């Protein structure tokens, strides 16, 4: 009798894994990811700066140059405002030019802050220009 009842007990045992709480756990994980994920997109400019050797021949007289002296901007040695610089860069129609004709020399003094450097770099890149950085050693 006792054996029989044991056998019956075995029959009633169910071997299923309890999955009722799975969805709750999963949704908790989703909420965690939703809270932890940062959806902030970074804004930037792509600057075309060719790497290469420092050649003085690249600085021909015809190559337009932008000179930053602190907060002042000089385009081909003439002081301009930022709006004028944009207009002059647009007049050069750099995006339709090829090769070295797209090059704009970018020179700056030591006290030039990154803010105005970035602004100029963005303007040149947006006009389709290739920025060539002028180093101080070359001036000496």
């Amino acid at each position, binding site marked *: 009798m006792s054996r029989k009842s044991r056998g019956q007990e075995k029959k009633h045992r169910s071997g299923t894994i309890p999955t009722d709480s*799975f969805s709750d756990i999963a949704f908790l994980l989703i909420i965690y990811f939703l809270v932890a994920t940062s959806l902030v997109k970074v804004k*930037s*400019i792509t600057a075309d700066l060719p790497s290469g050797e420092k050649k003085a021949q690249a600085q021909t007289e015809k190559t337009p140059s932008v000179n930053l002296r602190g907060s002042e901007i000089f385009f081909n040695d003439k002081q301009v405002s930022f709006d004028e610089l944009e207009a002059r860069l647009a007049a050069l129609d750099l995006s339709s030019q090829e090769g070295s004709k797209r090059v704009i020399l970018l020179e700056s003094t030591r006290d030039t802050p990154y803010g105005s450097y970035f602004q100029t770099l963005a303007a040149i890149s947006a006009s389709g220009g290739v920025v060539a950085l002028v180093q101080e050693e070359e001036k000496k």
Partner: protein
Amino acid sequence: MKRKKKRRSVPVPTASMGDIAFLLIIFFLVCSDTSKERSLSLDLPQSGYVQKTKVSVAARISMDKEGILYFDGQPVEGPKDVEWGVRAVLANTVADDQRHVQFTCDAALPKEQFEPVIQAIVEAGGILEAVGEKRE
């Protein structure tokens, strides 16, 4: 005599809820990009030309207000470390799309601090992605 209305039990099918939820988790795991950036104290430069970065960057270089340089969130000594780091990252890259290097820098830093870093990125073969804010 009023008959009692039998209430129909309408069970909501919840059997697949767990599966849906786990699919969503997998989606978030695959799509999320773990941030290697530290929260730096810096004022970003402004320009009207900045756009949302559409490319995936190979490395992130940042410079805070004090001029401390970070490569993927880790402080480094100077531009030489940046150059070697970028070279190492770009060693196995083939396409131009994989050569973008993000550069974040404080707007007030002088040239002698930021320009060697820009040159290091360029010399290492990276395409500069300079981070800024949209000017209103």
